[in-house]
């Protein structure tokens, strides 16, 4: 009937508006990265570039001069760090979560509260003491330091998600394995973990995204090319090339590729992770 047709049209329009709200800022950035320089100082700006200009991408990805090398070094460091943090968080987090859920280590109320609290601590609180400690240990400006810091920050969330998931695995499966003569550690590694693929993957993805974008700690703790991460490199870009937005938007787009790909391909996992009650929103 006409009523439902009108409803359909209204809904479609609303959905399109919602997509515009979500994507417009990103579109503007992307468009800037492929626009010729002339377009960028046009008043008012164009909605579509007059011609496609790949110079910015060439510059950021290949140019040898010091300026953009810092960005590439940043991407490299961020990749190494984020993957390592994801792996460690999943590994250690699953072990800890299992211990809490099935092996009776630490109990109920306390656990929920501590894990939540740990996720909600603003990193700003930690930096002063961490800086003093890290410099005394000579760990400043190393990838190792960032990996340790990030892992510590991600573990509460990892443990939280995995704990939630382990609780959904029917105890009977594990109990029957135990009765059949498996040791508790065999149950963990040969039964529970293989069954937890999705949750492990979710945890890995969320921690990767989190580590990839972390800014404050990287800003305070790294300075040289050996350890500087992508967000810090971009912030430098913003300081150095304040009017060269073409370059900055290009760097931004490149830095967004991993998270965007992950969101497109693994959206289910991300959604799962968020709704399990993780609070790092």
């Amino acid at each position: 009937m006409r009523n439902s047709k009108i409803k359909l049209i209204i809904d479609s329009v609303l959905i399109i508006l919602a997509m515009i709200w979500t994507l417009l800022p990103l579109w503007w950035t992307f468009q800037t990265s492929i626009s010729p320089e002339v377009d960028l100082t046009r008043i008012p700006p164009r909605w579509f570039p007059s011609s496609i200009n790949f110079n910015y991408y060439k510059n950021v990805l290949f140019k040898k001069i010091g300026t953009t090398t810092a960005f590439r070094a940043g991407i490299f460091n961020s990749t190494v760090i984020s993957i390592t943090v994801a792996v460690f968080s999943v590994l250690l987090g699953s072990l800890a979560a299992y211990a809490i859920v099935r092996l009776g280590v630490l109990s109920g109320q306390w656990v929920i509260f501590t894990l939540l609290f740990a996720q909600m601590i603003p990193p700003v609180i930690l930096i002063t003491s961490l800086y003093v400690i890290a410099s005394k240990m000579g760990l400043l400006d190393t990838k190792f330091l960032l990996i340790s810091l990030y892992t510590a920050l991600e573990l509460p969330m990892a443990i939280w998600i995995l704990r939630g998931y382990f609780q959904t695995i029917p105890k009977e499966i594990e109990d029957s394995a135990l009765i059949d003569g498996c040791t508790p550690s065999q149950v963990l590694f040969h039964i529970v973990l293989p069954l937890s693929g999705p949750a492990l993957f979710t945890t890995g993805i969320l921690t990767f995204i989190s580590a990839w974008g972390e800014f404050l700690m990287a800003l305070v703790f790294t300075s040289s090319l050996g350890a500087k991460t992508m967000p810090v490199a971009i912030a430098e870009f913003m300081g150095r090339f304040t009017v060269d937005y073409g370059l900055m938007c290009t760097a931004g787009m490149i830095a967004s590729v991993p998270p965007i790909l992950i969101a497109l391909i693994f959206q289910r996992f991300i959604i799962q992770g968020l709704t399990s009650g993780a609070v790092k929103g």
Partner: protein
Amino acid sequence: MSKKTLGYLLILPSAVIIVVVLVYPIAYSGYLSFFETFIGPGTLSLTPVGLKNYIETIKSPQWWLAFGRTAYFVLYDIVVGMSLGLGIALLLNKEFRLRGIARALVLFPYVLPSIVKALMWKWIYNSDYGFLNGLLFQLGLIKDYVPWLSNPTLAIHMVILANIWEGTPFAIIMYLAALQTIPKELYEASEVDGATPWQMFTKITFPLIKPMTFILIVIKTVATFKIFDLVYALTAGGPGGSTQVVGYLMYSTVFDSLQFGKGAAMSYILLAIILVFVFIYSKLFQSEED
């Protein structure tokens, strides 16, 4: 090996890392908060001052202004951000062909690195060539380009806008999850009884998502106290300190003014506030779990 022993072994690495990286610095911060720090020759000299840092912070107008601004952020985030999130979640809950892709796209503001988001908005707000100016100009809503980030009243709202954009995906996803727990039969039954869409929303949807609403309020409030990256990159607290929120104030106290003790005291006051919220949240979550 007994279960308990295995358990402790499994949790050991995580515990060690968390204690060393999180617990110890927080404790050290607590210690620092009772001292006045002064950068002297070669070292940090500490003068014990008891509760002075705490009292000064509580009495300081700067702290309360920052707190007020942060609360203002939270207000917008909750009223506008969550409504937007709910609205879009309702849309995405309907059946339509490209729903999967739409749900993926809607995640983008959440997954992007915060610094990229900041630079994106900085460019959009650019007073000479930015897109916001361009858009409003083309729509005929403004005659002259506006220096969005250079005007104290405007600047804070521009940061809030960027923050809402960033926070919408989380609200959408959470509300979507909540909406999906509402059995379709409720809606079908009410439709048979002749209910209008509005009645269905107010009598069925809204009450049933109330728990999620509370959860979101708590999470968003705590998250807003963490805001740093956006302010750092967009306005550095300016102009004239008009965008200085609590997170940035703490960073500034420690790194611009080098008052470690005071920064530590502020952190603890903030921690206390967050503790209250976490407590509320854990109670909410517990009731959800049961």
